[in-house]
């Protein structure tokens, strides 16, 4: 599909929102395990060594990062900043670029 860049950032914001709503279950599960007891904390650390577990956490964190960065763009635009066509395109570029950077950093940190 050929859509303007602003449409892509918008639909991705929506998709990521639905995705992290489900993904919150994973994070709450991790919080649960991390606080229950020293043993479950250690067990969580062990399971976080597995590639699958790392990938799932990274996916949720990535969704959260993208949604947050695009969300901040929403808030900025709600304040009346960048509400032009050029502003929207530039905003979208900034959102994509900074999300990629943050998501990569998150990946490096998790692995």
């Amino acid at each position, binding site marked *: 599909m050929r859509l303007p860049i602003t449409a892509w950032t918008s639909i991705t914001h*929506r998709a990521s*929102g*639905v995705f992290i*709503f489900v993904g*919150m*279950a994973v994070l*709450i599960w991790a*919080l*649960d395990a*991390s*606080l*229950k*007891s*020293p043993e479950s*904390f*250690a067990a969580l650390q062990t399971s976080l060594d597995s590639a699958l577990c790392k990938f799932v956490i990274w996916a949720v964190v990535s969704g*959260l990062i993208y949604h*947050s960065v695009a*969300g*901040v763009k*929403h*808030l900025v635009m*709600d304040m009346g900043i960048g509400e032009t066509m050029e502003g929207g395109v530039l905003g979208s570029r900034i959102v994509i670029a900074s999300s990629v950077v943050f998501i990569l950093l998150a990946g490096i*940190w998790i692995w």
Partner: protein
Amino acid sequence: MVTAVTSMGRSGLYDWLMQRISAVVLLAYFVFVGLVLLGGVDYASWKSLYSQTWMRIFSLMALLSLGVHAWVGIWGVLTDYLTERLMGKTGNVLRFVFQMACGLTMFTYLVWGIQILWGY
């Protein structure tokens, strides 16, 4: 003005504002927890952070915000795609079912979260 029974505050402007407020709370919470984790934690330090009253208040605020934010957010998505215009009466039924499923999930997150915060 159209008031929809399943929207959060029965008014678009109210929902819009709640969406923004909850977004800011969630953002603050995730950035804070992210920074703490980046700093490195062990069980003792992590546990003592979460036994502080202010941290529990902050966490509960984030959980409630998640509930509000997701209700409004999912409502927006459902009322765009699962509609009477797109799929007839089934749309209304499906939309309601999904909204309830979302509500149930949020409620589960909330109670689960409270249990984690005060139970251990």
